[in-house]
């Protein structure tokens, strides 16, 4: 059967005034998985995390984290969670080590246990050499690593990461992704918010697209991409080729109406990818006497899905709502 749910929310809502806040948030996160809340700035991702981490009291709905209600059993929830917020949540006048020891003591460890745990985490995160320095002297990457280490002090079963890699260089970002993957492999359940599509695609097995305070769509990265629209053949015609004839030939192979040419001399054909598709298209065009420079198959990206859903759709992209709602409905039905 399915693994136990470590995060479960239904109808979660919090308002900060008309049009501000989140509502109707349903979430189901099985143990040991990584789920990403993906959305633009101001979509409400942080509000959701803050409610789940017992920092904000929901106006409506309920949520259980690690089996405990976030309102009625807040302290029990706090024993099992770790949180890395967007703002640096470290004391920058104190050393890296002193920060971790303090948080250990506040997590109900004895001084000795807190020291041992701090030493262990500093080693794990490659911060031993900086352990005795004040955090204000740390680089952005080191600070973020220490921040993540700080959220692991109590050995959380559920980890909330609110935009953990914002402002990091690509190397530091990849290193942090590796840590998150390792934590999930070791059984930690991770809820991660991000505005980076690549990050959600790389890390999460399940993505909830949040926009305007609601879950606009959810599913695996694959499902969201599939829902973003069909695959496309991008065909670059040789100079002087007959565009109209090419379009007529290609219409027979197309899975839908041909999109307006994005660039002169190019054709974009929605297709259902299958074996021999590209070969047959080239043969058809050749038989019709249309000369081709280049042909490529483009699979939909998460960016297509995201842009469709968040209303920043560029011309030529399928309407997000139409394209995704069946998938989203299916994902919700499966979840329920």
């Amino acid at each position, binding site marked *: 059967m399915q693994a136990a749910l470590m995060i479960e929310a239904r109808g979660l809502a919090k308002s900060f005034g008309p049009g501000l806040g989140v509502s109707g948030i349903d979430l189901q996160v099985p143990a040991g998985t990584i789920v990403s809340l993906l959305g633009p700035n101001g979509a409400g991702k942080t509000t959701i995390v803050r409610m789940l981490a017992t920092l904000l009291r929901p106006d409506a709905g309920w949520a259980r984290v690690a089996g405990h209600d976030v309102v009625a059993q807040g302290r029990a929830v706090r024993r099992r969670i770790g949180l890395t917020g967007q703002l640096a949540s470290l004391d920058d006048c104190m050393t890296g080590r002193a920060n971790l020891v303090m948080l250990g003591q*506040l997590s109900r460890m004895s001084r000795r246990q807190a020291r041992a745990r701090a030493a262990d985490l500093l080693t794990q995160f490659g911060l031993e050499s900086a352990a005795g320095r004040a955090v204000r002297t740390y680089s952005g990457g080191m600070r973020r690593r220490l921040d993540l280490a700080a959220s692991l002090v109590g050995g959380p*079963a559920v980890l909330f990461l609110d935009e953990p890699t914002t402002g990091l260089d690509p190397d530091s970002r990849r290193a942090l992704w590796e840590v998150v993957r390792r934590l999930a492999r*070791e*059984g*930690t359940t991770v809820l991660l918010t991000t505005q980076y599509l690549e990050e959600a695609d790389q890390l999460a097995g399940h993505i909830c697209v949040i926009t305007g305070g609601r879950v606009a769509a959810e599913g695996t990265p694959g499902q969201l991409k599939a829902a973003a629209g069909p695959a496309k053949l991008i065909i670059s015609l040789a100079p002087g080729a007959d565009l109209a004839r090419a379009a007529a030939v290609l219409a027979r192979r197309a899975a839908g109406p041909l999109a307006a040419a994005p660039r002169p001399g190019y054709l974009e054909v929605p297709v259902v990818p299958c074996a021999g598709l590209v070969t047959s298209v080239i043969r058809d065009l050749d038989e019709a006497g249309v000369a081709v420079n280049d042909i490529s198959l483009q699979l939909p990206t998460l960016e297509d899905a995201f842009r469709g859903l968040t209303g920043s759709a560029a011309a030529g992209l399928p309407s997000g709502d139409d394209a995704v709602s069946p998938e989203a409905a299916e994902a919700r039905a499966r979840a329920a």
Partner: protein
Amino acid sequence: MSGGTAGLGHPLAASPAAVAARGAGALAGARRRSQATAVADAAGTAGWAARDMAVLAKRTLCRMITTPEQVLNVTAQPIIIVLLFSYVFGGSITLPGHGSYREYLIGGIFAVTMCGTAQGTGIGLAIDISGGLIDRFRSLPMSRAAVLAGRTLADLALTIVAAAVTAGTGLLLGWRIHTGPADTIAALGLALLFAYAASWGGACVGMLARSAESAQTVGLLVILPLSLTSNAFISTARLTPWLRTVADWNPVSVLATACRQLLGNPDPSAAIRSWPMQHAVLASALWSAVLLAALVPLAVFLYARRVQR
């Protein structure tokens, strides 16, 4: 259930006291056991809260030591005020009756310095609340009251330093304590009690302020009039009647007068027929008690409201 917790857990989740109480209860029957456990749990909770408060107070003191410029208002400021009022203003101020102005002044500066503590509390908490660290604290299974209680405790420790600096400067300029150790300790106790109460006022300001700068401005707008409409630097005898009434009931005046009485310094206020001036020690203790009773719950309320935004 989760590999992530392996080897860590919370070995102290059941406190030794609670375990011991359960052991005792087993001998005496189920009912007594539940009572003993409840008492032990309550004691355990209070114990944890006290430890959380101590850990956070230590953090604040650690910050003060690593950034000493942040605490200049309680360390260097008393020296400056003592020197200013002794040498610049002192010559133009005459006390009713006989008595040395410098001897009179130090009690007043004690009282004013105690207010200064509140400024540090307000600014420090305003910085903390606008950063991410308090969110981190609130996601831990720690006592939720410890954030404010730890800060005010650390500021109390800083106040002792400020009192010592004030006294040291005073002694160099000829101020003396004319009474015994018991009275001296009583004066120090009253001053610290007032500083602690004022510190909770600062905590309220910190919770309301949008930034450290605004906490500082608001703090100054409260402390400056409060200090200057008191008998800290001048005698209230020559003020217009309504202002004198205000000054005589001002907690800064009351504390300054109580310190002067307890330390045997000149006290022209003894001639003023107003209840707080006639019973300054009792009045100062009452003032602090009233302020604490009002400001602690208010600060806790403002904190709870602030973090919900």
